[in-house]
């Protein structure tokens, strides 16, 4: 990974700029950002692990705690909210047996509420493993969860 990060860094006039892509890469490897990830990113970019951690804590896409294998992110900003976002979120809570912000006990799925995903004309937008599903209704929820549980 260190070599890969150094390669990304060459794209920028200053290697520090590569910290976001590097953390993204590390998160893809580990599923979240453990201490070891900050050490590797730091080593690759000549930054301290503490610095890398301070960056990660600022940005919403980075997980500082273990996350589930799959990530379900429901937009609950107003445009989706006006249509059915809360009902969709609650349907996921029921189907998964967890509350928003939690991970299922078998660690397969993490459920999060997120701010506007930029898909407001087809509410509710749900990002499933970072791919947008549009116009999701509560009725669609069981199938989405089943799909994740089976694969």
């Amino acid at each position: 990974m260190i070599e890969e990060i150094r390669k990304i860094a060459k794209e920028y006039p200053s290697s520090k700029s590569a910290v976001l892509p590097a953390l993204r890469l590390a998160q893809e490897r580990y599923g979240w950002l453990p201490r070891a990830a900050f050490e590797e990113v730091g080593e690759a970019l000549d930054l301290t692990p503490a610095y890398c951690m301070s960056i990660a804590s600022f940005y919403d896409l980075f997980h500082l705690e273990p996350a589930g294998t799959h990530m379900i992110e429901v937009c609950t900003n107003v445009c989706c909210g006006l249509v059915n976002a809360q009902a969709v979120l609650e349907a996921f809570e029921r189907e998964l047996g967890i509350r928003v912000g939690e991970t299922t006990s078998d660690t397969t799925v993490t459920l999060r509420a997120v701010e506007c995903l930029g898909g407001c004309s087809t509410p509710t937008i749900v990002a499933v493993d970072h791919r947008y599903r549009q116009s999701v209704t509560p009725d669609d929820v069981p199938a989405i969860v089943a799909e994740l549980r089976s694969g």
Partner: protein
Amino acid sequence: MAETVVEVAEPPALVLKGYEGKPLVDLDTYRAVGGYAQLERARAMSPHDVTQEIIDSNLRGRGGAFFPTGRKASFIPTPDKVAKPIYITVNADESEPGTFKDREIMLKVPHRLLEGCLIAAHAIQSKHVFIYIRGEYSEEYEVLSKALAEARKAKLLGNVKLTMHRGAGAYICGEETALLESLEGKRGQPRSKPPFPAIQGLYASPTLINNVESITNMPIVLEIGPHEYAQIGAPPDSTGTRLFCLSGNVERPGVYEAPHGITTRHLIYDIGGGVPNGRDLKAVMMGGSSFPVMTPDELDTKLDANSLGQRGLFIGSGVVCVLDDRTCIVQFALRVAQFYMHESCGKCTPCRVGTRWLVQILRAVEDGTATENDLEVLLDVCDRIIGKCLCVLGDSAAMPVASCVTKFRDEFKQHLAQGGCPFGADSSLANLFAPVDQHAHAGAPA
């Protein structure tokens, strides 16, 4: 899974020119509608003349602030005047609630955006363009990367280096100086201005920052000519078209390209098919969640900066989100305030503390535990935020909240008189969860 409606609602088609339902994602289809011909033309012109054409068109920023695009480019010093590189950063961080147009540009006409980048690079003699793309946008990143690879292979980049940089989930990084910090590998916290990015931007070098839609207009300005462009829409100040983002309680939501100056009513009722289920329109989130709301008596206002400005409204990023009469306006204001509380970078006190206060007071109003005096406190907090923060995010929290209180004061009072929400669970926004509560909530007993 419904597709997003992306249409030219009223001619002329500019940003979506040649699109007609079929994405112009590969180089050949884009070339077939005249793609990259303007880049060639621009490169045969002097940089100064290209900038002059953008100035003459009076193209203005589509990212929210509506600043004249050509004038901003003219602030960039020429290479003989500075010993530093000159950069362009394209703002593709699209995160303003209600905004979903830049995404469609990247998905439907990615090459037009790239052509715009290269024209802008020629105009200000930049050799390195960065596209800062919102971290959540995966498909958009892939489509644009593929278009970029094709353009590179076809040797269209010339001596320009173009780097795609993915964000990581932070609304504030759409603010131009926070974006630069983020791109430099730091936390996305705004810088104080001056110095302005045109003089000291990325890596302390002159930097031009423009929104995706602004840049995508550049090939069109050159194609139809700046003077022709300046006639379209609501000249002299609001020229050209907009990709209006229509959403909320409306029959046919979508991205609609139409000239500046169509009325809000026309967009919502004729193009968008009106409010579904026979409901009435209660308010419009106009320009984005960062701005004052529009009320039904203002529906005939034209969608251009001056007509909206006369009413204290903003065109922002082209957002028109319809709230029907089931919506509790206090819940709306609360949810908007919660967004800004979550996204405040914490650098300055009025914003960091003020957004928290707004949320607390609005919560108390919604729960019916507030007093009439709290409404004055609410407006006072807004007043202590507006114009007193390092960046505009603070204002963006306070302006919509203040507008809800002043335009719907009776509804706020009704909450106080009844000791709770008059809509109860019937409001479409009832109990809407906000990410700002996520950490407190997770792990708590059900």
